[in-house]
């Protein structure tokens, strides 16, 4: 299965404030009553985008017209913690995000996102703060996540190093972010391993 390498993603960006943004926040459980991921995009961050009493839009950054169409999400610490639901990165991707920059990521969310070819890179707190003020001052700033060289660059000249697990970077840039074919190709080794495991 030949997949497209993901060497860089870029677009306008939006900063989502708060640490420990959990996957219940990203996609509330009631929207998981579905048997496909189609249509999840419109429910991303639903309960913080809409007031639960009035149904009115809140002042959440995703409702700010300046950030409409942003495709890079910038966040704080422990982004994507909580439930393992792939519905979370799926909803972000279907909402239109192509990459996430945060101070740290919860592991399951990170792995799920990589498998969906949505790079998640880690920046320092200071660099996240700088990015935040850049995009909040000028929402037309283009932010590029350079996966290959592990840097984040902006159209206004900022260039900072970021990090990412080696295996995820390798998987993205070599077009192996969805490992299914490689897993299946090792059929003989899988069966050999199974035979050695007494309980299988």
């Amino acid at each position: 299965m030949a997949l497209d390498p993901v060497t860089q993603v870029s677009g306008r960006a939006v900063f989502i404030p708060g640490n420990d943004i959990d996957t219940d926040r990203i996609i509330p459980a009631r929207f998981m009553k579905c048997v496909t991921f189609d249509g999840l995009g419109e429910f991303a961050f639903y309960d913080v985008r809409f007031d639960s009493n009035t149904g009115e839009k809140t002042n959440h950054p995703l409702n700010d017209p300046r950030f409409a169409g942003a495709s890079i999400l910038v966040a704080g610490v422990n982004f994507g913690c909580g439930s393992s639901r792939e519905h979370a990165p799926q909803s972000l991707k279907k909402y239109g995000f192509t990459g996430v920059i945060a101070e740290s990521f919860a592991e399951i969310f990170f792995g799920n996102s990589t498998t969906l070819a949505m790079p998640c890179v880690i920046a320092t707190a200071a660099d996240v703060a700088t990015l935040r003020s850049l995009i909040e001052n000028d929402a037309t700033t283009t932010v590029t996540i350079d996966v290959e060289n592990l840097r984040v660059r902006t159209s206004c000249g900022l260039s900072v190093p970021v990090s990412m697990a080696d295996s995820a970077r390798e998987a993205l840039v070599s077009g192996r972010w969805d490992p299914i074919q490689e897993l299946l190709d090792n059929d003989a080794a899988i069966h050999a391993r199974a035979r050695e495991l007494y309980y299988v």
Partner: protein
Amino acid sequence: MGKNLFQKVWDAHTVGILADGRTQLFIGTHLIHEVTSPQAFGMLRDLGLKVKFPQRTFATVDHIVPTIDQDAPQDPLAAEMMQALRQNADDFDVTYFDLASGKQGIVHVVGPEQGITQPGTTIACGDSHTATHGAFGAIAFGIGTTQVRDVLASQTIALAPVKVRRIEVNGDLRPGVYAKDVILHIIRLLGAKGGIGYAYEYAGDVFDRMSMEERMTVCNMSIEGGARCGYVNPDAKTIAYLHGRPYVDMTDFNTTASRWLSFASDADAHFDDVVKINAAEIEPTVTWGISPDHGISISENIPDPATAGTLLEKESIDEALAYMKLAAGTPIKGVKIDVAFIGSCTNGRISDFREVAKYIQGHKVAAGVKAIVVPGSQIVAIQCEQEGLPKIFTDAGFEWRGAGCSMCLAMNPDKLVGDQLCASSSNRNFKGRQGSPTGRTILMSPVMVAAAAINGCISDARELFHLENPANVA
């Protein structure tokens, strides 16, 4: 140097190293439920693939099942998801503990009680609380739906190994301090992201003395501490628990048991980090905010943002207090509650209901409080009935329900309404977790939930129930 359990299990299940450097890890046992599996079966169909080892996948339905009239969901979407699981289990020849089987329940309760969860195995499920199964000395972790597809299709996933942190808790737990308090305390100390990049090994005499069910409560919330998984080394209790369970092969059980024990961490095993905690310092713990590491002991005051060390910390306390509608610097004890929930994969097992039933006789749930009790599985429900527990609960004014996840995440009709505040034995106090976007959750042990239900406010169960003897950690 010896190996720890994580390394032993990892090595025994390694199929090979992939081009990107990750390990192709064999998944011995795969558990699935209705919420995160239908899309994976859809992907399998799209790719024209079969389930490689259908006998190694086990399904049940838990998240969306109503707890009243279990098999007749009013919600057409819920009915569709239950139907999809039935169809997928049939089409792909997977064992399904459905409602009619008498064995349905929360997937993390069903696995151990059927003896599917075994030491020295790898267990994956599209559910973060898969960490629960680590109580048996398994490496058990949550995966995403695309990985559910990978396991179905290949019985393997691509994964990088993690480091291992040994958390030793030694000494005696004080009366009224439970396994739930131990894990809430650990998460408070190490933080909700403290475990990122780690598996947690829980060791020391507190865990040695715990029952298997208490160990499950602890391992269950490893994920709330950010760890990928958590485990307790298998011992005589593990073996006694599994002996005779339906999926345990009893031919030559002695050999099986010694094989299981051989996975325990060696005495000279290496750990990437070691944390030591004195059991006597642990108090009954409750959360006050919107992250599981927002914990305080029942006698402490709610944090004051004015005393925060950093701006970030101040902002996070402010945000939590605004959401929780709680006043900084005031006691958590006495905060009025609207709902009490005893259940979930953290605390929905027979020992949880027995423990609460010991104390609530002669008491009544406070007027205006809705208190619901939800067994973790149909088997737990039957056991409770045999022991006369439902009547004890209903006499005290609790509602007794059918098995499922219920109000833990409210994908079923059990939900908070508006900004109701719930004393809950579940594992997550995230914003909106219990079904209302403004609903509020305070996590605690089941006995503390019962005390809150009876007093109508957050309470110290030790005072209400005169808990004097050391917590039952037989």
